[in-house]
């Protein structure tokens, strides 16, 4: 700048820059500000030596400290496992029914079970166990095919239903009545079944057919049998639909749900937690 210009009002030098009559005052930064900037640069250089920084064509500069976020993550996960082992060891050691007697342990197991359920069970049974159409039962109601006690749920998750991989899987087979009964017989039978839950009129033919063919598994009064996985036909909950057509279809050519055994896929501790969670959904007996 050739000439110094001083703003008369503020007593501050101007930079000589002017826009539409407005002049820029020269208010210099303090020099320590500049030093802070240099220190930041020095810090960055030091950081790039000690910590992972520059990308190479293959890989990256790892830094002399050998720090890695993945390593830190693994350490933290290990520490977390360690922290959780207080509870998970206790869950492992406690029979599943007795976990329910301990409110704190139940809370922990339920929280863990929620995650295990979401990762493994939700694809068929739906988020939070609401079930899915087409024979994937809802787990939140009070109707159970194979039993809703904590031990029954635990056994079902361990061994599954009608699978070929687990010798202890729950097994039952509803006969294909389309090959045994005539069409009008099945229709009469369906009417009787509907009447069991208070829908439509009963008929003697259907009642006789029911006593001869169905009562063995479903019980004399259609109350079902959880040991055989025979559903209760007198309540308002229908796995494959509550219309007459649906019932006729189920009698004629029954669909049979299959569930894998989780024993071997999940640890016993995880299965216990999943059972506690399912039990807590509202229908646990």
């Amino acid at each position, binding site marked *: *700048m050739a000439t*110094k210009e*001083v703003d*008369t*009002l*503020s*007593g*501050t*030098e101007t*930079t000589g820059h002017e826009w539409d009559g407005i002049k820029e*005052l*020269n*208010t*210099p*930064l*303090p*020099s*320590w*500000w*500049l030093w802070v900037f240099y220190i930041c640069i020095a810090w960055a250089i030091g950081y790039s030596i000690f910590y992972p920084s520059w990308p190479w064509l293959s890989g990256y500069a790892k830094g002399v400290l050998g720090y890695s976020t993945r390593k830190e993550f693994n350490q933290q996960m290990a520490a977390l496992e360690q922290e959780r082992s207080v509870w998970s060891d206790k869950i492992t050691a406690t029979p599943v029914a007795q976990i*329910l007697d301990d*409110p704190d342990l*139940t809370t922990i197991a339920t929280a863990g079970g929620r995650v295990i359920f979401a990762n493994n069970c939700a694809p068929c049974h*739906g*988020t*939070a166990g*609401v079930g899915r159409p087409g024979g994937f039962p*809802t787990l*939140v*109601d*009070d*109707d159970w095919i194979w039993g809703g006690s904590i031990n029954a749920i635990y056994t079902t998750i361990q061994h599954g239903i009608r699978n070929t991989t687990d010798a202890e899987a729950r097994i039952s087979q509803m006969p294909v009545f389309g090959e045994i009964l005539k069409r009008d017989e099945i229709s009469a039978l369906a009417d009787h079944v509907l009447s069991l839950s208070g829908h439509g009129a009963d008929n003697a033919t259907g009642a006789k057919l029911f006593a001869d063919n169905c009562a063995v598994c479903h019980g004399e009064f259609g109350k079902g049998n959880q040991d055989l996985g025979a559903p*209760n036909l007198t*309540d*308002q*909950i229908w796995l494959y639909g509550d219309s007459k057509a649906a019932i006729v279809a189920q009698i004629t050519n029954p669909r049979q749900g299959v569930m894998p055994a989780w024993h071997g896929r999940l640890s016993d501790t995880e299965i216990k937690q999943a059972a506690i969670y399912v039990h*807590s959904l*509202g229908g*646990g007996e």
Partner: protein
Amino acid sequence: MQQLNNSALESKDALPPASRRRAAPIAPSEEATRPNTEQRLYATRIKVYARSVQGFWRRVKWGVVATLLTLYYVAPWLRWNRGPDAPNQALLIDMPGRRAYFFGIEIWPQEIYYLTGMLILGAIGLFLATAWFGRVWCGFTCPQTVWTDLFMWVERKIEGDRNARIRLDKAPMSAGKIGRKAAKHVAWFLIALATGGAWIMYFYDAPTLVHHFVTGELSSTVYSFIFIFTMTTYVLAGWAREQVCIYMCPWPRFQSAMFDEDSAIVTYEAWRGEPRAPARKGQSFEARGDCVDCGMCWQVCPTGVDIRKGQQMACIGCGLCIDACNDIMQRFGRPAELITYDSINNQIARAESRPTRRRLIRPRTIAYMVLLAIIAAVMAYTLATRTRLDVSLLHDRQPLFVKLSDGGYRNGFTFKILNMEREPKTFLLATDGLPGGEITVIGIQPQPSPSVELTVMPDDIGTFRVFVKAPLSSLKGKSTDFRLVLTDLATRQMLVHNAVFNGPGE
């Protein structure tokens, strides 16, 4: 640095131009001697060697410094008995326990708005104080000012007053110089450590903190925080000082918005002081100003400004230059208050020989006071009438409702009871507006029942999985409004919470 753009200052032609038209950078007078040859992008810091001073404002400042420092260091040690299960520290923000304690008041995280209210009160209080007394916050009560004052006092005790310190800094390196400098920094650091440690005491039981600090039992996080607050105190009060006020703090930049012509500010009465000239004792002050140009006003200034250049951003309004100038005026037998803590209007009045008056009641101060009163009243009312029982209800999103085997429907809720009292409470939970409505609670009430007893531990949140079951006949369409009624079995206090029951809408 720039002068404060105070419209009041600029519009008053009654003030002689000399008070604000002296075209020079606002900084210690040393700066004027620097060769002004080329434009510099960065300003070299001019070290401030503040001279010690005695007088009224210095005494006020010592009083404020002593009071605030005592409050700060002692307050965490005050005890307050809250019973066996609660901390007995009167002032405590218990982060892990999610509680804040202020003597008899306990604040839960849900009540954080009390803190917001305090901050709003503080801000408007600051505006009001500024409208009345100018930068009284900056000059007397700001932590930066208080600790800088304390650090300067230590510096003076070890290195001597202004002249001795200038000499020491110019002197070649010697054992004596190193000794004094080291002693000063050690003393500063110890004060900073006490300051940083005391800050943590507001978040940690004070006696335990001291004990664990010495035995090395604190977590690395706590040590890091103590280190951070120690170092900021040391750097800001020892090294940065007036640089904080000039370059870092936003408050000086906008506090002029609270000023008007009636705000009391530290200013030089140029109408009486100019033309300035050196003087000898006994000399006549005819046909000249009272200012003897002794430079004491800028030598005692902790931020190194020359107040005779007018009101400016770097002036923190501490009034020390008033003390210095009054002392000089007395020696020359001239009237005191050549530099004065008064309003612009009063200065103009004196210059024109009119009576002065202090106007505390002005539209803007009335506005601030009304705001303060309203907010304080609302806060006091909510605090006095706040309930120590609260509930929160979260309806399950999935599933919204469940059909049961008897044809009825069930909704699931997560129900929380916040028992903010220091005793266990038992409540009765029932439904209202849902005929035939029955409740089950996981782990507590397995069989549906019209009402359920729920117990919550003292100072705790009880979380319950609550299922409400209702027959289809009680439901009105897809959603039915009903109420959950919680009754304290001991006091019969009732809390009614609105809820919605979802159904199929058949």
